[in-house]
């Protein structure tokens, strides 16, 4: 999966699950302060991402360091690469 595909699919999750406008989905957008998700929304986000990408990220410690949409996209890209190896 390419970086562009990961970005596209991640953004789709935000649009479909949270009805966030595409224009707000910038790599530097803070998931909490700019996009308005809270800890309960993150649970929904994780479920939606797992379904979309077919990965398990719920128990991954690296999730805790994610702050921006760009961080999230890079994290998923890394996970996908790790699975592909």
């Amino acid at each position: 999966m390419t970086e562009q595909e990961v970005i596209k699919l991640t953004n789709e999750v935000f649009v479909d699950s949270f009805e966030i406008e595409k224009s707000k989905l910038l790599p530097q957008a803070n998931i909490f302060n700019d996009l308005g998700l809270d800890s309960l929304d993150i649970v929904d986000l994780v479920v939606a991402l797992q379904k979309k990408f077919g990965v398990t990220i719920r128990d991954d410690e690296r999730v805790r360091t994610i702050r921006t949409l760009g961080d999230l996209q890079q994290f998923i890209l890394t996970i996908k690469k790790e699975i592909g190896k």
Partner: protein
Amino acid sequence: MRILKIAFLNFCFYTFLITFSLTAFVNLGILIILAALFLSKRRMFKLLRQAIRWYGGVIIRILPFPLIRLDYKNFGLNDPPAPYIFICNHRAACDPFLMAVFPYEIVQVVNIWPFRLPALGIIAKIAGYLSVREMPYPEFAAETARLIKEGVSIAAFPEGTRSRNKAVGQFHSAIFRTAIETHAPIVPVCITGNESVPPIGSAFLHPALIKIHRLPALTWEQYKSFSAFKLKNYVREFIAKEVLVMDKTR
């Protein structure tokens, strides 16, 4: 000269506050003991929450007058009957006391620190106030649903903390998830003019006209198709727009 007058009014307020609170807490303690002995648990809670409303009313309407004045407007005259979920913006430490303007049995959703206040924290705990950050969400949802079923309204400040500027902060979704589960009408409440009652990091009250606008309720029929995320942002935008107008018309 003006600052001396304000300082004097502050002195009067805090003197009366301490005296009144000590008297109220003693009487409230006796009331709780008597109620526990002679009334059902449900009636005891109802009486206790009514007493808290009276206490809050005195604290916010009578003791700080003329330093602080309230202007309460109810735009929800055609609302369905209670219980409601009141959603308020949050700028000042006095906000929980402002809930006394609503003539309903109310339990407030609070952050951790109010439970640590001497006397007030104990009373809040006994009255069943919900410390949302100390409860796992399923426990919070179950307790909120139980209260609403009993006819108790819930008041929440979903920003979670006082706004550092006049902007309405991001909302937490917990209370909106319970609204979706319980079908309770959501009443947006906009509060302005309270920024200096008292300012963050100070106990000094500045003269203020606190405006409280109760907006028309959002009923289950209106929000049933919303996700919790969409609902919290919808209500937040609704409140933010009204707050902006209220701030401009001061």
